[in-house]
């Protein structure tokens, strides 16, 4: 019987299925961070349990870490306690930690792929909804709550019901100035912030195939923003080239063996999906959001829909029917697990080189990991940013969710390459406009929402 990519991976991870209930799904890799793990460790200890498979867990500190002076003790007391709890818990339970100060530290969904921990065919979970990112490597990856973190620590398994499957095909060649971020913002704007709830999504089609791994990660990352449990993309030469030689990628004969196996990871020709959507790449323009969920997006040259939710528009201080282009912004945030990889920084630098930021904006660039930061320095990207007046900070989740000091002040507008524009997401009463790194870069230079196509 023909199978989907999802089913091929799912089926070989099912330990057993409870009659009329969920399946027991075996988890290959478990990423943990400081915010959603402490209660899970406490729960384990309360039950008198050890971590079942500590070598299948990778830990890092990212959500609440400061992005300046990381060599100093964390000033904010509660954050410091949480980060210290992760240090203590991982030490006690023999889990590898890439914490503050470690050359591999960074946003969990940046470091997993970057280190080659994330590999095709795996099941991967993390107490973070953007775990869907790892699906770019043909994995079943999804976010879980803390009780589930505890379950995986205790048994390396989760009880899961098989989701419905959706395939989204993006066919054709992307227009100039259009990036993978625009593809996913376009998809979410079309199917809404809840349009894929209950589904696991496979992205396919020639436009998806043309993307780098970084671009594919951006797309899978935001699957959750349309309600999907996760997103995934079949592996190809781009995937294999990315993985080969990475720290934890297989080597030698093991690499060859894995490669043969990974090449089988694709949906069979006649495989059935519960829903299938096809989008023409040519229809996609640079996108931006105007509202308070990621489905509220339009082309940068578009107008805010007349029927847009008035509560959202009141929060955003925007008018139905108005153009979004030309809207003055106060902050530009380039970072987050969506767009903080070296390719994103290179793209921004290539546009910004020889230009200066507008006087009315403050620009924060927060690399996704220490390795991204070091690579940027090696390539001289740090100097390009310094000359442009951008503030290159240290790795972490930063202003994506404003758990640390990096908050957008109340009422201010921020063009952000992150994934959520919810009320208060970037700080109480902060106003977020989600966009691609290129659209963020042009806003940094012009001080307003602009169309990158007029500049390149």
């Amino acid at each position, binding site marked *: 019987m023909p199978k989907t990519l999802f089913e091929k991976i799912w089926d070989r991870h099912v330990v057993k299925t409870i009659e009329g209930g969920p399946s027991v799904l075996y988890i290959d890799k478990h990423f943990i961070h400081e915010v959603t793990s402490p209660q899970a460790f406490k729960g384990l200890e309360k039950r008198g349990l050890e971590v079942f498979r500590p070598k299948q867990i990778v830990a890092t500190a990212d959500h609440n870490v400061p992005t300046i002076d990381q060599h100093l003790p964390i000033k904010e007391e509660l954050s410091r306690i949480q980060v210290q709890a992760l240090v203590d818990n991982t030490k006690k339970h023999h889990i590898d930690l890439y914490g503050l100060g470690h050359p591999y530290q960074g946003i969990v969904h940046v470091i997993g792929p970057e280190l080659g921990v994330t590999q095709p065919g795996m099941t991967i979970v993390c107490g973070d909804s953007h775990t869907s990112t790892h699906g770019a490597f043909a994995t079943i990856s999804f976010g879980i*709550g803390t009780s589930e973190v505890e379950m995986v620590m205790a048994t390396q398994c989760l009880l899961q019901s098989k989701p419905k499957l959706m395939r989204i095909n993006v066919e054709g060649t992307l227009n100039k100035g259009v990036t993978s971020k625009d593809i996913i913002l376009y998809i979410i704007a079309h199917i809404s912030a809840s349009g894929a709830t209950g589904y696991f999504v496979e992205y396919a089609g020639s436009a998806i195939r043309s993307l780098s791994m970084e671009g594919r990660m951006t797309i899978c990352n935001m699957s959750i923003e349309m309600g999907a449990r996760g997103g995934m993309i079949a592996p190809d030469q781009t995937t294999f080239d990315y993985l080969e030689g990475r720290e934890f990628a297989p080597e030698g004969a093991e690499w060859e063996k894995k490669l043969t196996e990974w090449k089988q990871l694709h949906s069979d020709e006649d495989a059935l999906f519960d829903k299938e959507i096809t989008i023409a790449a040519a229809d996609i323009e640079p996108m931006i959001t105007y509202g308070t969920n990621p489905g509220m997006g339009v082309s940068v040259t578009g107008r805010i829909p007349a029927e847009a939710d008035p509560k959202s528009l009141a929060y955003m201080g925007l008018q139905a029917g108005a153009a979004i282009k030309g809207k003055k912004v106060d902050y530009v945030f380039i970072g987050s697990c969506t767009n903080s990889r070296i390719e994103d920084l290179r793209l921004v630098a290539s546009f910004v080189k020889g230009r200066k930021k507008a006087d009315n904006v403050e620009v924060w660039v927060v690399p996704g990991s220490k390795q991204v930061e070091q690579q940027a320095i090696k390539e001289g990207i740090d100097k390009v940013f310094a000359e442009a007046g951008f503030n290159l900070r240290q790795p972490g989740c930063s202003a994506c969710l404003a758990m640390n000091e990096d908050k957008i002040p109340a009422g201010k507008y921020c063009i952000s390459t992150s994934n959520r524009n919810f009320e208060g997401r970037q700080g109480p009463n902060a106003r977020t406009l989600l966009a691609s790194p290129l659209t963020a870069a042009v806003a940094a230079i012009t001080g307003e929402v602009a169309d990158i196509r007029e500049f390149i």
Partner: protein
Amino acid sequence: MSKSINKITSTAVPIHLENIDTDQIIPARFLKATSRDGFGDNLFRDWRYNADGTPKKDFILNNPTYSGRILVAGKNFGCGSSREHAAWAIKDAGFDVVVSSFFADIFKNNALNNFLLPVTVSEEFLQQIFAAIEKDPKTNISVDLEAQTITLGGNITSFDINNYKKTCLLNGYDDIDYLLSIRPEIEAFEQKPQTIQ
């Protein structure tokens, strides 16, 4: 946390908004705890309190007219982050049931793992609940997990829940208890060669 749920009859607190995300339920800056307790104080923090900590009079949780163990909200409730703190905050604030026409997946799992029952009803039934409470804030709603029904006045409708989870909630079982009981099967599974079929 009360373990096990079956029959609940209570007045309800309605929040007539769609797409309520977990950043509204509990903003990220309040996730810096290492225990599961006390999150209820910050439930709907930025809708409930001004920047100076004084209550916002127009928010429903600050209106003594509305109270109860049932929270009623518009579709796509709990979208966004996987933070289980959202379920902890709702439970800690005294709710045992959330009624909506549509729940985000991760939130639903988190709720079930904390004996907070998510009840999915039709959009029409949801609107009837909102209308009934608007007319009379003392309207009682009854939820019967065993029978899988929700009753509003003379109006009764059924809701879905998978049998496994239902048994867990009725008896106070955790998923983790079950998974621990099959650890030998998990170990045997790990020994089997993994092939793609």
